[in-house]
């Protein structure tokens, strides 16, 4: 008869009470695990979405993140191909990088002067084939299908814009966008009208110059931005599609165009880009690669620039905010459940001690030390903990299987792609092991007070207590 066997038998004295305690623990454990699995799903879903669209790391000229958004034309990477070549020649980086692609960020005024409409915009100049490669990243096996870009590498001069911007520029009808109504057009005052006319003249002039380069697909709009010298510059872009961009700000403002066209608009120089996007094969190595990149680029005197390398948690603060919010909720729920388990187990073991006072006295009279009595009740708490925690894990696994095969879907914040709503119970081993250990520790800690009470009992009084 070892102590563990004795503890198990003691817990069967009052089966209903022990089962109720274990059940409370199982319910808490299942709730915690399913919520944790859901958070894992959000975490990996969000990360997959961000890494597919924005990559893991961005390389900028020093100061770009702080000041560059107001003057993108002043913060650029010069001779970006040299930078990319330098990166590609590094053994560690070569091995770990999946996609490396330049991008140009810009802001200005988009005008559909034929419809007498214009609006401020921000845009990105990209290489479509690289962006399509990035959309295939799926480290966590979420199997979300991201449709490829409608832009191709050969369709220079074409672009895509957000649905909201399409409405404001009166492009719904022209682009034949379903469920999209053009903005009602009112007459405008004379002063504004003059500005519009001036821009229209500039745009028409540019359109004439760029004729032959632009494709004839889609609807032509003009993008006006200032160059580094402060002079206005205009390019014509044939918008071939208006689509949802994931949130209202992007919907109302974003224009995606070819890298070359964006370079011409902002820098008038095809050697410059705003940033270089790097997508890694493995997110786990992101911080190590980030550090390595910093050293590689900033210690290379041939590059003649100082760079900053930011990871997606730094250039996309929403990710950390969302994840932190869920972690705080998880901790709060874990705390509440731990308290319930704590008090339920204390109550159960205290009742058990009270019912066994003469037995405790007899055991002490027979020669059991106080520590052995204490150990016996701690062991009973431990048995309650390990039973509840283990059953909880098994039930959580069964419910996860059922839930994951029920076909629920959702779109993570900032994403337009719907994906299956999965509970990723096994994605983070710490969740399973941590929750399992937490329940066992809480139940064992709960038994400290009753165990102490039992061990401190006066033998004579205990034996008399019948």
């Amino acid at each position, binding site marked *: *008869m070892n102590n563990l066997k*004795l503890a198990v*038998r*003691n817990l*069967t*004295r009052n089966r209903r009470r022990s089962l109720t305690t274990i059940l409370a623990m199982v319910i808490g454990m299942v709730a915690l695990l399913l919520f944790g699995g859901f958070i894992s799903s959000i975490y990996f879903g969000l990360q997959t979405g961000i890494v597919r669209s924005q990559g893991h790391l961005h390389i900028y000229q020093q100061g770009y993140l702080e000041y560059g958004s107001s003057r993108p034309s002043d913060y650029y990477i010069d001779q970006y191909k040299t930078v990319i070549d330098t990166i590609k020649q590094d053994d560690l980086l070569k091995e770990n990088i999946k996609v490396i692609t330049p991008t140009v960020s810009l802001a200005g005024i988009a005008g559909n002067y034929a419809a007498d409409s214009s609006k401020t915009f921000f845009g990105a100049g990209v290489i479509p084939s690289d962006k399509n490669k990035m959309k295939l990243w799926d480290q966590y096996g979420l199997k979300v299908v991201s449709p490829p870009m409608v832009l191709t590498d050969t369709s220079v001069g074409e672009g895509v814009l957000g649905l909201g911007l399409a409405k404001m520029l009166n492009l719904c009808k022209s682009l034949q966008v379903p469920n999209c109504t053009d903005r009602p057009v009112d007459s405008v005052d004379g002063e504004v009208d003059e500005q519009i006319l001036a821009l229209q003249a500039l745009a028409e002039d540019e359109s004439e110059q760029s004729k032959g380069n632009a494709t004839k697909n889609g609807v032509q709009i003009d993008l006006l931005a200032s160059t580094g010298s402060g002079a206005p510059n205009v390019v014509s872009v044939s918008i071939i599609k208006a689509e949802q961009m994931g949130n209202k700000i992007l919907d109302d403002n974003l224009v995606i165009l070819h890298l070359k066209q964006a370079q011409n608009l902002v820098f008038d120089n095809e050697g410059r880009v705003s940033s270089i996007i790097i997508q890694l094969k493995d997110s786990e190595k992101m911080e190590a690669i980030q550090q390595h990149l910093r050293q590689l680029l900033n210690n290379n005197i041939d590059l003649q620039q100082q760079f900053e390398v930011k990871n997606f948690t730094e250039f996309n603060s929403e990710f950390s905010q969302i994840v932190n919010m869920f972690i705080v909720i998880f901790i709060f729920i874990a705390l509440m459940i731990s308290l319930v388990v704590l008090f339920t187990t204390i109550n159960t073991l205290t009742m058990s001690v009270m019912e066994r006072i*003469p*037995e405790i*006295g*007899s*055991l*002490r*009279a*027979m*020669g*059991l*030390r*106080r*520590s052995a009595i204490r150990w016996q009740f701690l062991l009973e708490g431990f048995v309650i903990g390990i039973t509840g925690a283990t059953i909880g894990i098994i039930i959580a696994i069964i419910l996860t299987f059922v839930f994951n095969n029920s076909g629920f879907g959702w779109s993570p914040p900032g994403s337009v792609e719907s994906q299956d709503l999965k509970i990723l119970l096994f994605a983070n081993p710490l969740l399973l092991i941590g929750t399992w250990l937490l329940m066992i520790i809480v139940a064992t800690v709960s038994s400290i007070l009753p165990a102490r009470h039992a061990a401190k009992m006066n*033998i*004579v009084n205990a*034996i008399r207590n*019948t």
Partner: protein
Amino acid sequence: MSSNNNKLAVLHDVTKVYQTGVVKVEALQGINLTLEREKFSFIVGPSGSGKTTLLNILGCIDVPSSGRFTLLNQEIGGLNDNQLADFRNHHIGYIFQNFNLMAVLSAYENVEYPLILKNIAKKERHQRVSEILDSVGLSKRQHHRPAELSGGEQQRVAIARALAKRPDLILADEPTANLDSKTGAEIIDLMLLMQDHYKTSFIFSTHDMEVMQHANEIITIKDGKIESVNTTIMKQKEGV
């Protein structure tokens, strides 16, 4: 004259005072007593006379408020709580009025438990438990739990449990009080048999005049003081 080796217990001017709030109860008042080994001794006296307190002190589950107490040549007053527990584990067996068996263990396991506490090897444990259960006539009931046994059977298990570890002293606080007279007599006979077989010292507290006829020694206690120590019965028996 008895040598020190024959002395089971020596109490010199032992007192026990209980303080409950402002009320002070002197349960034992200057007890002087010497008990010899391998005897069947009874402590008798009316309710509240202090016999259970004396038994508790002799069983090392309570300590005197003053005076000296030596058991098996060991000065008990100098032992700490763990040492006292170890001393009880190795030298003392208990038989309780309410049997106090562990409800979740079978008769066999209840008897085996004190042997586990003494770290006795499994093979020897099995041998001892089987032998003692056979001696008390419970071999066929060894896998039953206490709730499935009668009062007499439970007390037999308790006797077996106390004897299994082969202690020097067994203390029994009114062991027949919860049994009918026939079963009580059977239990006393059984204990006499066991005492004879294992040469263990037995000390009882009891009200039952009938069982006293089996005693080697009767210690009468009243108002916390020893009124008499009667060894006549013992001498008569020894004479026979």
